[in-house]
Structures are given as C-alpha cells and as structure tokens.
C-alpha cells in the first residue's frame, strides 16, 4: 500500500506526514509526528491512554486512521501546557499525587480537560463517569478524582 500525504494541524502547528492508509492516527502521531506523549495501552479503544481531541471532540486515536486527520485540528497532551506554564489540571495532578507510573496520565488529562471545558463544576459522579473510558491500574482513581475537583475549583476561581 502506498503512503498518503496528510496535512493536519497538531497543537496549533501545521504538520504534514505520509502514512499508509491502514495506519492508526495513534501510530502516525507517535511514529511520524514524534508525539510519544500519546500512549498505546490496548489499541482497541478500551483504555483511553491514547486520548486526543479531534476538532474538539475527545477520541481514542487508536480508533482513528492517520489519513482521517487530513484538514482536522488535533490536540494532544504535548499541547496542554502554555509554554512552561502548566494547565491547572497538570499542576493538580502533581500536587495531589494523582499519578504513580504515569502511563495513563496524558489520556486522563486530555479527557479531564474536555470535561471541565463542558462542565466547569462537575459532581464527583460526573467526574467518575466522564473518566470511565480511561483505565488507571495504579491509583484506584481516588487521587485522580480529587485532582480534577481541585483543578475545576482553580479554573473557576481564575475565571472570576
């Protein structure tokens, strides 16, 4: 299969890569765009470690083809901090000890950011269901939920 040239926007930058038509966007991001913050945990859309946004929509990049990125707008974990200024979610994940091994962390952060953009004041239950597509095996989710609650509070304060 010959490769297809794909033009897309990733974290604000226009990026071009060539990929075979059957390659997942996850593989294109990792192996062609060098964005290894996007993790593969399963390749079947069950663990959420490869979470990104595609035109603002939260998706598992392992369930999207690289060629589908043509003309789209992608954000990954690498685009979350503003320069050296961390996003409140990133800060609170560190402060709350919401990560142990850290492999699921990029996916959780991307998913949590989408949640808080839509729902600035989620209940515990809303947080738990919004993050139910992301598997973490280290933390039992306790400190992740607390970090999201704390970040939501920080973000509401900074909006005022």
């Amino acid at each position, binding site marked *: 299969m010959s490769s297809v040239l794909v033009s897309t926007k990733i974290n604000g930058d226009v990026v071009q890569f060539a990929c075979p038509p059957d390659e997942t966007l996850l593989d294109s991001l*990792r192996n062609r765009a060098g964005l*290894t913050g996007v993790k593969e945990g399963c*390749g079947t859309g069950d663990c959420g470690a490869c979470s990104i946004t595609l035109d603002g929509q939260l998706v598992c990049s392992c369930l999207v083809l690289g060629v589908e990125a043509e003309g789209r707008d992608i954000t990954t974990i690498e685009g979350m901090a503003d320069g050296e200024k961390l996003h409140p979610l990133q800060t609170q994940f560190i402060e709350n000890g919401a990560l142990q*091994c850290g492999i699921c962390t990029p996916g959780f952060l991307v998913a949590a950011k989408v949640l808080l953009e839509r729902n600035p004041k989620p209940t515990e239950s809303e947080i738990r269901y919004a*993050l*139910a597509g992301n*598997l973490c*095996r280290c*933390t039992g989710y306790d*400190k992740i939920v607390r970090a999201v609650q704390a970040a939501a509070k920080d973000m509401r304060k900074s909006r005022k």
Partner: protein
Amino acid sequence: MKHDNSYTDQEFKVVGTRVNRPDGVDKVTGRAKFGADTFAPGQLVGLTLRSPHAHAKIKKIDTSRAEKLQGVKAVLTAEDLPDLTGDDSENFDILENCMARDRALYHGHAVAAVAAIDASTAKKALKLIKVTYEKLPHVTDVDKAMEPDAPIVQPRNLQDGKPSNISGRYEFGHGDIEAGLKDADVVVEKSFKTEQTHQGYIEPHACLASVSPDGTGELWVTTQGHFSFRNVCAALLGMDIAKLKVTPSEIGGGFGGKTHVWIEPVALALSRKANRPVKMVMSREEVFKASGPTCSTSMDVKIGAKKDGTITSAFIECRYMDGAFPGIWGMLGGMTAWACYDLKNVKSIGIDVLCNRPKVAAYRAPSAPMMAFGVESTMDMLAAELKMDPVKLRLHNAAKEGTQSSYGPVYGPIGIGPTLEAVRDHPHLRAKLKKNQGRGMACGFWFNIGGQTCTDLNIGVDGTVSLTVGTVDVGGSRASLSLIAAEELGVPYEHVRASIGDTASLGHNDTTEGSRGTFSSGMATIFAAREAVEVLKDRAAKMLEIPVESVEWDNGVAKAIGSEHGNLPTLTLKEIAAASPTTGGPIAGHHEVTADGAGVSFASHIVDVEVDPETGSTRVIRYTVVQDAGKAIHPTYVEGQFQGAAAQGIGWALNEEYIYGDDGCLQNPGFLDYRMPVCSDLPFIDTKILEIPNPNHPYGVRGVGETSIVPPLAAIGNAVSNAVGVRMNHVPMSPPRILKALDELAGM
C-alpha cells in the same frame, strides 16, 4: 564501611512531607519516555508468531517464504536460540517460555519471530511462516491437572521418578492440628476457589534492542529489574554480562508482571541476526495471552476453636496453578496463610501445579491474596458460628511481638493488633447499612524484602545533589529517596535530583519487587549520604585548617567544635562543594548492601457493598484501608499504594478472571472482556497509615506496596456473603456466580 541499620527515633525535617515528585512535570506533559517511546537509527520492527493451540507438538516450521519477503531482515525460531543454560533449569524454563522448542505449551506461546523494516512487512512475514502442529491433549484447570490421568504439561517434571503436573509441595506450621481439633468446641471448614487474574499494567511490554557484531549490546526496556534482565538475557544469549547495557525506561506499571523476560531475549537475538536495532512492543492481546498473570487456586480450610474464640487448630491446603513452568507460588502462599495469628497448632500446605496456561509471574504480594481469601472467609464463618464479632475474634487471636509465626520466625514489633484496633474504633464500622448492603472486613500479611542494593550520591560544585539508585521507580520512589538524601545532608529537597542508573552505572541491584524500593534504596541512600558527610567534614577541616575531629556536621553546615576553634566561621554544604575542585576533587558517597531486616507488614480492611439481587451485580460503596507502613517517607504515595492495591483487589474479587474455553484457548484477552475497575466503579478509598517502626531500618521503614492487595478478596467476600445471606466461596464474585448462589439459597 559497616553501618548500623538499627532504628533510631530521630526527629525529621523533610521526611514525611508531601513534596512534588521529581518526574511529575515530565509525566503530565508527555515528555516522560516509557518502553515504547524511544527510537534508534535504522531500527526494525519485531513481531512474534504465537501458538493458536493450548498444547501441540511443533513438527515443522517453514520460514522460507517469510525470509524471502522484501523488507524482512531476520526470522527467528528456537533453532536460533541454542540451549546455553547448562544445569540452570530455571533459565532453561525462561528460554523455552520465550520461544517454544519441540512443543507449544499454551495458547499464545511464542513459536517464531521476525524483524522487518516496518510493521506491515513484519505482519505479512508472520503470515508466511508455516508451522505444522500436532495437537496434544491439554489441561487448564488446577484440580484436573492433579488427576492421575491428566495430560502431562512438562514431561521433564518428575514426582517420585514419574512425569507429573505437581511441581512443588511446601508445608509450614507447628503443633499438632489433629490434637487441636480434639480440643475444639467448634469446627468450621470450607473449600474455596480463585480465578486467574492479570496485573493489568497499562503499558504493554516494550523494548529496543541493539547488538553489535563486536558482541556488545544495549537494551532499552520497561522493567522492574534491569540488572536481572541483563543477567538473564546475557546467559540465554551467551553474552558477557559487562557487555550488555540495560537501561530501564519509565515503567508504565508492573505490579510484579515486569520482573520476568519475555520479548527481550528475542529482540536481542533478532537484532544480532539482522545486525540492526529491533524494537518490540507487545499488543494488549499478547500481554494477556503470553506475559505472566497470577495463579488460579483451589483450597480447603479447616479451623477449630474454643467457645471463647481461641483457635485450637488451623489448617489450609491450597493448590496453585503455575502455568506451563514451575514457580514457588505454593511456598509463598503457604508461608503467608496464617501469619496474622498466634496459633498453637497450625499447618499450611501449598502445592504448585502445571497447566497449559502462560507461565505465572509475581502479582503484588504474590500468592497471599488467595490463601487470605480462604482463611479470612473461614474466620468469618467461625465468628458467625461462635456468635462473636469478627473483629473481636481476630483481635483475640492476633499475633504480637514474641509470637512464633506460622512460617517460623518469631515476630518483633508488628502491626496486626494495632490495625485491628484501628478498624474496631473506625466510624466506618458503625455506619448504617441499607437494604441489599453488607459489610465485611479482613486482614492481610506480607513479608516485604530487602536484597542487593547499590547507590551513588554525588555533590555538584553548586551544592546540588545527584542521587543514582538501581531500583526502578514504580510509584514515586524518586521523591521518597530524594527526601531521605535531603534529610541526611540538610539541604532542601529541591536540591536533590534522583535518577535510576543503568546497568553500567551501578553495581547489581535486585529487581524492584517485594516492596523493597524505598526500604533498601532508602537504606543505601542514608549510608551513601553519611559517607558524603564524612567527605564534607574532611574538606571543611582542610578549609578551616583544623583537624577533622574538630568538625561537626549539623543540618547542612560544618561547624568547628572545641573552645580553641570558637571563632571560626561555619561552612555550608554549598561553600564546601564550591571549594571541592581545590580541596581534593569531587565529593561523593556510595553504598552497597544486601539490605536485611525488611519489616513484615499487616493490613486490615473494611468494605461495604451493595448487591443488586436482580442482576447479581455488586457495587463497592465504601472502603477503608488500615496498614502499618513502619514509617511513611512520603505519605501521599503511601496512601496511593494502599488505594491502588485495594482497587486491584476489588477487581479481582468482583470481576476479573481469565476465561479458558474447552479448547484450552483464552477467550477474553482484551480490556473489554477482561474488565478491570474503571473510575465509575469505585468510591473514594479511605486510608489510615499506622507507623510501627521497623527495628531494622534507621527510619523504621517497612515497605508498603503490596500488603493491601491481600485483604480485599476476603473482605469483599465477607461483605457480599453478609449482603446476600449465603457464603461466597469462588472469586471473582461476578454477577453469574452471585445469581447462582441466590438461586441455590432460594432452592431453585
């Protein structure tokens, strides 16, 4: 230099504070590099062909068409991995597990591998390899494997000179259990089963291997033990240990599952054959089928007791399903079974049994949760029989300082009594329950280990500290170890940077297992720092032009002591470091040790569940962990260990299991069908850290990572049993099993 590792009741300045971890920013920004996150120029993609059968003779492997495919650089079978293991049967087992030889021993067993220029070429090549199998009878159930006419998994495994699936039998205890039964007023007995589960780390096994024609090699790999990976790979491939450098990546979860090699020797062999770097990453399906899950078990428990609750006789026999290669799981289980209690007559038997399933690896306090399920469930049955409160019954029989443990040693100061008292006094135990809800509690024990450890500490000319340790950071240990170095040297935590050294940078470090990371590397860090302090004092003496005996180290500052030096200025670590190039060169401390004296650890858990009688589905609605940490160096990460262990136990208790079909094939090798707890399945998990110092560690550290996976199976089993009114004796207590139990109760 010999150091005294005894506990000293010192006051801490930074140890015990909740600082941010040094790898935090890298891990929240995507910069941290895990096993699959590195690349080498000219790297190939390695893939594995796996057996579709549970047990089969490999009659022929034809690789000729794959070899001819454009872009294929190497094809590998067992013929490329000659047996260089000598008399080391354990290494031969590893070799055969990495690549099947004359027989495929389980569904998913590797039979061939390829390295090609890209993934699609490698996939095509796998399809072109033709393996001729002759299917053999298989066995995947532990009890069936012990029957006299069971198919034999490993003909080389002999019992009484005859091939057998029983690969080990271990017995522990003391006293006379039969005599104890005669003294008993009440006897309870029950049989239990637990199904096979997987550690479920989110990061699949991954490595990048490069072997040069000059015989040197490099391996970048996600592992809990890069030194043991190096030693094993070198032995299997006939390489010199010093010529193979293994660098551990950030590790995306291990829980015991990354203590063994699988793809790594194959990747090195492919690289050697292709003369190019080879990257191998397991798919999730491969992780389930062909890494090292834990044992399934089957067991019988019998307890006799007096009317006042005093246990007079305690017995358990547990059969552990080891997979296709022998392990020591029965031994570990047998040692842990009754460790919580002070017993006059006690016996535990652990039996290891081979089956056509993947070779079992460690999973967090390996073997302990299963026997704890049997023991702690039967303890609750005894409490019910005696009409006694379950916590009171356990407290009445709890082991204490001076108790001879069921596995031999006499205990020093231990935490089982205090954790039970904390449970007894916890408001959770008095909270009201609603309809269909039940409460349970259970206890757990784990040894913790020490082991070979080697640590380097270097002080830069600016006074900052570089700490290099050889235990992999699985959950925040770099923060804990930096705290320890900062404490010893009297410098701010932020001035210490801890890293994990590769195998060329440090002496051998045992694998990060047995909750040993913070215990043993912590001990080595303390003594490396104290050595550095000696150097600092020496340099300060030179700078002040006084004898070193007249210099005292006090919280990061060298002070001259004695009236004759009273006017001399103090020197900070920073000032001494700045002068180091002219006072004798670099300032460093080093320590190597076999860290003995790891402290045993106990936990007691309380759980409330709600069972839906219509669907049989169980929800955990409240959970409390109480565990003895010895000393919590970084309380946040200690709590994290408690919570993570409890969550894994909850998954094991309620849902997770390997499901094999009659064909011996694994039916659920994916996260959708092997369902681990997700965020919406769990409540907050409350924790209470107790600190009963380990007498054999300067700070009192015991090790905290594993113990809390031991109680949940039984705690939840007791809670569900209380909720539904029938004793649950088979884990996981998945909806079909609960519905079946409810039907039986209703006489249907």
